[in-house]
């Protein structure tokens, strides 16, 4: 707050005797602490970005991005892992998106207030909190073994899809609920049926929000390791996956394997840095995109 004035009068204080109040002192101390917290958080997270970028950059080359690993993981590139991560993520979203959207539509538009619906809501909330390794166990027991898909892209995508489901449902619900009631009423008042209103009014106006939520989950799925460890990922394949039943390499698992297996730590570390940089770039670009989009939408809806 700025001001411009001619000071004819003297300032006053209620405590003329005391130079500094205790409360002002604790305020200064407290604010210092808060600043330190924020600085530490940013420092640590910033140093991760710094190390991965600075040490990973030398590993990146056209060959690194486009060729397969050679000589027991000590040379060559990570192209199969990039392709694997893309296909696993794509598969997971292809499975979870329609299902999650349908569920969100039901919960926001059709849901009768019954115990059953409450149970569905509860199960979504709880599904969201389950550790990814438990999803991995489930995927292994059901998709890999019972359904007999084996360790494959299909098993991995389904496992990742189930993991992403709660996030997609709640993002879609939020987007659908943000559609003003007046839009729906206008449509219904014109004689549209419930489904026509959903399909032509509700979904089109909530679509940007829904897609943002989906993109945000893409980032999480792409970086996930524990859920694909025993459902889809393999340390090494010769080439690219040729069907949904083949094992795939994936960037996150590749980083893990490079760090814990193999016999040439030096050269493997460089490749791990390079893979980390690719994964990080991928995930951060995707999630920044989602967050920027969301902020823009919030401004549109005046939220």
């Amino acid at each position, binding site marked *: 707050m700025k001001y411009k004035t001619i000071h004819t009068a003297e300032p006053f204080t209620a405590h003329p005797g005391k130079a500094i109040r205790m*409360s*002002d002192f604790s*305020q200064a101390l*407290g*604010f210092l602490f*808060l*600043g330190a*917290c*924020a600085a*530490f*958080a*940013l420092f*640590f*997270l910033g140093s*991760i970005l710094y190390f*991965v970028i600075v040490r990973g950059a030398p590993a990146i080359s056209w060959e690194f991005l486009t060729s397969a690993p050679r000589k027991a993981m000590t040379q060559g590139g990570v192209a199969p892992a990039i392709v694997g991560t893309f296909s696993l993520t794509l598969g997971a979203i292809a499975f979870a998106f329609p*299902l999650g959207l*349908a*569920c969100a539509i039901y*919960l926001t*538009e*059709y*849901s009768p207030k019954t115990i059953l619906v409450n149970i569905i809501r509860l*199960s*979504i909330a*709880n*599904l969201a*909190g*389950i*550790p990814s*390794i*438990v999803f*991995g*166990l489930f995927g292994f*027991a*059901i998709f890999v*073994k019972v359904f007999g898909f084996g360790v494959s892209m299909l098993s991995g995508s389904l496992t990742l899809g189930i993991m992403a*489901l*709660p996030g997609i449902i709640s993002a879609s619900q939020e987007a659908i609920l943000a559609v003003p009631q007046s839009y729906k009423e206008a449509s219904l008042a014109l004689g549209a*049926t419930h*489904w026509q209103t959903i399909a032509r009014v509700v979904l089109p106006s909530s679509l940007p929000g829904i897609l943002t939520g989906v993109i945000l989950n893409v980032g*999480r799925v792409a*970086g996930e*390791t*524990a859920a694909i*460890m*025993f459902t889809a990922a393999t340390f090494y394949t010769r080439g690219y996956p040729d069907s949904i039943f083949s094992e795939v390499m994936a960037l*996150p698992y590749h*980083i*893990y394997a490079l*760090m*814990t297996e193999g016999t040439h730590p030096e050269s493997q570390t460089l490749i*791990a840095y390079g893979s*980390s940089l690719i*994964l*990080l770039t991928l*995930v*951060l670009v995707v*999630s920044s995109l989602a*967050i920027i989009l969301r902020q823009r939408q919030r401004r549109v809806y005046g939220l």
Partner: protein
Amino acid sequence: MRHFRETIYKWIFSVLAFASLLFLTGIILTLFVESYPFFVRHDISESIFGLYWYPTYDPPEFGMLTLITASFVVTLGAMVVCIPIGVGTALFLQELASASQRAVLKPLIEILAGIPSIIFGFFGMIVVAPFLQRLLGIPTGLNAFTASLVLGIMATPTVASLAEDAVSFVPRSFREASLALGANRWQTLTRVVVPAAGSGISTAIILGIGRAVGETMVVLMVAGGAAVIPHSIFDPVRPMTATIAAEMGEAVMGSGHYGALFAIGLILFFITLAINIVAEIISRRFRLKLGLGR
């Protein structure tokens, strides 16, 4: 005809809506079914409270207490890191950051919350662990302390982001009332804003705990992997998630070891379930308290 179509759509959606419930039940059933043979053959309390985890010995021993303790210790350590830093960052954003700083920092923190855990594990293993090993002169940098630190930092953006939301829900009128009574900003923050947002902040912390308990890659790579009860925070440990991840590949299907790993998964599932339920209850109370409705 039109009516018929409407009904069909409604039915399709309601059937699909059950997917989540189906998967949740599926997960619970799978964990029970796969660990059932283990529980039949081994005494439950002996396994849970047993100190020795030697799954490949003959006869094998499946004492899970070491693993549970490890998870507990590492999570506790992570909380010591991420509660002050996460909540402190949230309060900094709310109270000290200018509007333009907040406009940058808030999304930045959300973006950082999306860094994959494997990157944290990798960073912890290759940068933090050697650094701490040299700094503290300890035999190995891969231990409970390092794992706690990395895990805590990993959970910080989540906690900060959720806590910031909770604090921003506190009506401006509370703040104004306090300032108008002659309180300074720090008093207003600590005596009015934080207590009012208290349960919201607790929810943020509890969800952070949930994230730390269930995290696999960081502890798998950084905690050191020794299945013994730690005597100091600089001892290597092997939390539950790391155990599953490390041993699932070698466990023979249907063996005691295989069942034991699912049993750990089951324990893990119930722990996170409990955490979620507590978070849900507290956050509901928070909304009621501030009159935000449900």
